[in-house]
Structures are given as structure tokens and as C-alpha cells.
């Protein structure tokens, strides 16, 4: 190797090595930048949690959970908002489950690959990109005004159902796609009709994925704020909501109302409400995990 160099004294190795060092060094810098980026994100997340916890924890006591909103921060509580969020979550779950799963089953198992069905699919992926506040405007015009629900919790739940439906459908489609075709063929070989195949074979096999998708979508609905402002959740409510009549409010809106006030005490109870909201979402995420593990215990192919 060394004998082939033209200039005496410098070997190919001598010329190559510094360049290689430089190239490797650039690589190390780049890797450092990658680690740095994730470090920044981790730090931001940590700061967010620290900020919320340090402001909110002193305000978080049983009276805060069981109390009703008040003009005085030290007496304010979040029970109406908490109940409102739970009711919204449950109603959205109940409405989304049949619709979302049925739509996914149609698109995945029944729909032929024609123009109409491709349009249905494209439409769903486009809907998932529509800003949530637009759903609020739709809810305001259709559910609140045209269909006469008024500013009720039901109008809010219906609006959020439409908002998360695309998410549920996409998650369910993924779950159905993951079931191997041999399962379908097996059911058909035993003489099952299409629906019998769907109900007896596909649904149990896709259940973990579908249920996880729905629970996570419910968590998203509970954290959603903007569309509910448009359908009337921004109200001062000191009573527990009734789904079909009267005012209602939800946790994120309560957070917004208090965060909009400059006094530090209101920022404190706003942070406390955030903690409750985050715990609620954490519970739902844990639930999704448990459901996934339990339902997929018997599945193996």
C-alpha cells in the first residue's frame, strides 16, 4: 500500500486518516445534536410538569375536588367540570364505538375498491386534519341551532363524537388490517357468511386494537377545549350538569377560564385543575394498556 504513493513521506494512510477523523467527528457532532434535540424536548416536558405541579399541588385538596366554582379562588372547586368531562367522555365513547367500528368494518371488509369507497376513505383522512375549532362551528350551527339541542352537554358530546370519529375509524382500520387473511379464509371455509366471519372471527381478533383506539380517542375528547367553547361550555356552572338541559362545563374549559385571569391564585387553581385533567387522561391511557393486554391474551397466530 505505502509503496504506491507519489510524494515521498506521505502515505495514503496519512492523507486518508485526517479526513476520516473529520468525517467521524462530524458524525459525532450530529449524533450529539440528535441527543440534544431529544434532551430539549425532555427538558420542556419536565419543566411543564414541574410548573403545573408546583403551582397546582398546594391547591389540590378534597374540597377542591368536591367544590363548585367560585369567584374566590380559595373556595373554588371543580366538581361540575369533572362530572361534565366524565359525562362527555362516556357519551362520546358510547356514540363513537358502534359508529366508528361499523364504518371501519365496512371500509375494510365490505367496500369494493371503487371510486365511491376510495372517496369515503380519502374523506375520512381529510376529516382527521380539520382543525377542532371548525368542528365547534359545525356543532354550533347544526346541533345547537338547527337540531335544537341548545347549549347542552349533549350538543358538546355530539360535536366531539364527530371530531374523534375519524381517529377511531383509522385506528380500527389498522386493527382490522392486522388480522391475517388466513383467519378470514378459515371462517369462510367453515361456511360462514360475511357478517358471521366479521362477528365471530374478526371482531374478537381486532378487539384489542379497536378498544385501545376508542379509549385513547375518549382521552382526546376529554382534553379537547376549542370546539366546546363554541357549543357553549364556557359558562359559570355551580351545579352538576344534566346532559340534555341546562349549562355545563368541562375540565379544560375550567382551566382556560381560570388561566385567563392574571391573579396568581387563579393560576394556582388552574394548575390544580390541570393536574386533575392529566390524572384523568393518565387513567384512561392505563386503562387502554390493560384492555389491550387482557384482550390480546388469547390471540395467537
Amino acid at each position: 500500500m505505502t509503496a504506491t504513493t507519489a510524494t515521498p513521506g506521505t502515505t495514503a494512510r496519512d492523507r486518508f486518516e485526517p479526513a476520516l477523523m473529520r468525517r467521524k467527528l462530524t458524525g459525532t457532532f450530529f449524533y450529539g445534536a440528535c441527543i440534544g434535540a431529544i434532551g430539549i424536548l425532555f427538558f420542556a416536558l419536565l419543566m411543564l410538569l414541574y410548573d403545573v405541579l408546583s403551582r397546582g399541588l398546594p391547591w389540590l385538596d378534597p374540597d377542591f375536588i368536591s367544590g363548585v366554582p367560585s369567584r374566590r379562588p380559595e373556595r373554588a372547586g371543580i366538581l361540575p367540570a369533572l362530572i361534565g368531562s366524565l359525562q362527555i367522555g362516556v357519551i362520546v365513547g358510547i356514540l363513537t364505538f358502534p359508529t366508528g367500528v361499523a364504518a371501519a368494518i365496512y371500509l375494510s371488509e365490505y367496500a369494493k375498491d371503487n371510486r365511491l369507497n376510495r372517496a369515503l376513505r380519502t374523506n375520512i383522512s381529510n376529516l382527521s386534519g380539520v382543525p377542532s375549532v371548525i368542528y365547534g362551528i359545525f356543532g354550533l350551527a347544526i346541533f345547537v341551532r338547527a337540531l335544537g339541542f341548545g347549549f347542552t352537554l349533549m350538543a358538546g358530546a355530539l360535536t366531539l363524537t364527530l371530531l374523534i370519529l375519524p381517529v377511531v375509524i383509522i385506528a380500527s382500520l389498522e386493527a382490522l388490517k392486522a388480522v391475517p387473511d388466513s383467519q378470514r379464509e378459515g371462517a369462510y371455509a367453515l361456511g360462514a357468511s360475511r357478517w358471521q366471519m366479521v362477528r365471530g372471527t374478526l371482531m374478537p381478533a381486532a378487539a384489542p386494537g379497536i378498544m385501545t383506539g376508542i379509549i385513547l380517542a375518549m382521552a382526546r375528547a376529554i382534553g379537547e377545549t376549542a370546539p366546546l367553547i363554541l357549543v357553549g361550555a364556557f359558562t359559570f356552572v355551580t351545579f352538576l350538569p344534566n346532559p340534555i338541559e341546562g349549562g355545563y362545563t368541562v375540565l379544560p374549559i375550567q382551566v382556560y377560564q381560570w388561566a385567563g385571569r392574571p391573579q396568581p391564585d387563579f393560576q394556582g387553581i388552574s394548575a390544580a385543575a390541570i393536574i386533575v385533567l392529566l390524572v384523568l387522561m393518565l387513567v384512561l391511557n392505563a386503562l387502554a394498556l390493560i384492555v389491550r393486554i387482557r384482550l390480546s391474551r388469547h390471540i395467537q397466530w
Partner: protein
Amino acid sequence: MSTQARPLNRVRPLSERVIEVLLLAAASVGVLTTIGIVGVLAFETFEFFREISPVEFFTGTFWSASIRPFAWGILPLVTGTLLVAFIALIFAIPLGLLSAVLLAEYASPRLRNVVKPVLETIAGIPTIVLGFFAINFVTPNLLKPIFQDDIGTFSALAGGIVVGLLITPLIASISEDAMSAVPRGMREGAYAMGATKWEVVRKVVFPAAISGIMASIILAMSRAIGETMAVVLAVGTNPQLTLDPRESIQTMTAFIVQISLGDTSQGSVQFKALFAVAAVLFTTTLALNLISNRIVSRFRTAY
């Protein structure tokens, strides 16, 4: 897929057909929603344009919906929205792409188990919490020390930073998928030629995944433009035509929220303006989403 497997029985009982119709009905809810959204926005926007000329709306540089004299030029809201979106992208593109490279190329399973949850948690935080973070942490602890008195309680910068944080996981996850889809053989070819890891990432993986990366950025921009709650708390309610990130501004989404908080009666100009602004917002985000889809399907390389 399912098109290959078919039931053996050719005659379908009535119940089977009823079920299929029901399933189709469920699948059509999405279409009804789309028609509803477009219909509602179009109708009320048309009503709005009967009172306010479209020329004033699209070219006017003053916006005042709640304080007389009213002015209906949407440009301040548009520039406000774009300003926040661009600030967000300035933060989110490097952070998102670097995280994506880390996940797709460098990360050991152990590092992955740390990085993924961080991104997923950020993606799952309700956006109102990020708005809270903007006014209670970002502005007093990050921006005030840097800009001193040049920056107020509300600023486009504070909003842009938290929106950037919010869209980073989106860029990261889609770009990571695009990078992971680049076949191993291409990387190994480059390694065999003596390339270092960084060179493989820069000259092989990155160009091969560029369509997915572009799509993720456009999608993230659409998300930033449509983001509401993080922005409402952070940027203020001061629509003005400015590109100074330290200024308090108003975005289209923030205007929609502000108007719906007040006692705006149905049929008033303000109420119709709500729909007109929403129509602009809807059209913009839809266009961006379509472009993003287009890029993905157009430039998808089949390996």
C-alpha cells in the same frame, strides 16, 4: 386483502344485506360531516359577503370585530396565524427531524424506550395545558430574561414556541416512518463504499425519505395553523399587521374563540364574520393536507 377471501355461499340472506346497509350508513357519517361543514361555512360566509365586500375582507389591513369603528380586513389575522406557524416550524423542524433520525438510525432499543414515550406524552398533552405553560413558564422564565421589557405578557413568540412543541411529535413520527421505510440494502450499499453513519443518513436515508419528511412538515404546518387553545392564551387579542414576534397579535383561531365567548347574537355581522374566518381557516388547512397527501402518494418510492 379481504377482496380475495369471499364467503362460499353466493346467495345472501336479507339480514346480510341489511347489515351491509347499516355499515355503509356508519361509513357515510364522515361524508355527511364534510358536507355539513362545507355547507354551513359556505352559507354563512355568503351571508357575510352580502354585508361586507369580499375586497375589503381579503385586502383590508385592519380588523376590529368588537370595538367600533368595525373593520373587516382579514390580513392581520392571516399574518398573525402565519407568524405563529412559522415560529412553530422554526422550532419544530430541527427538533422533530433530529428526533426522527435518532429513532430511525441511532437509537438502541433502550434509548427508544425513553425517546418514544417523551414524544407520545408531548403529543397527548391537552393543548390548553401548553397555553398555560406559555403564559406561566415560557414568557416569564425564557422570554423575559432575553428580551427584557421589549416583550409583553402576550406575544406571538410565546405562542409559536408552545405550538412548535406541540407539532414536533407529528414531524418526528411521520419522518421516522419515512426513514424506517428506506430499505436496509441502500444503507448497506453506502456502508460498503466506506461511508460513515452520518454520511449514510445525510446522503442516502434523508434523500430517500424526503417526500415523507416534506409531507410531515406540511401536515405540521396545517396543524399549527389550526391550533387554537395553546395560541388563545399565549398571543393575546390584538389583531395587527406585524411580523415582529415580540408583539401581541391575534390568530384566526383565537378570533373565533374570542367572538364565541362574547354575547354575539345570531345574525349579527360578528357572528357571520366567525364563519367567514372559519371558512378561510378550513380552506387553508384542507389545501395543506391535500398537498401533503399528494406528496406522499406522488413521490412514494416503491422499494
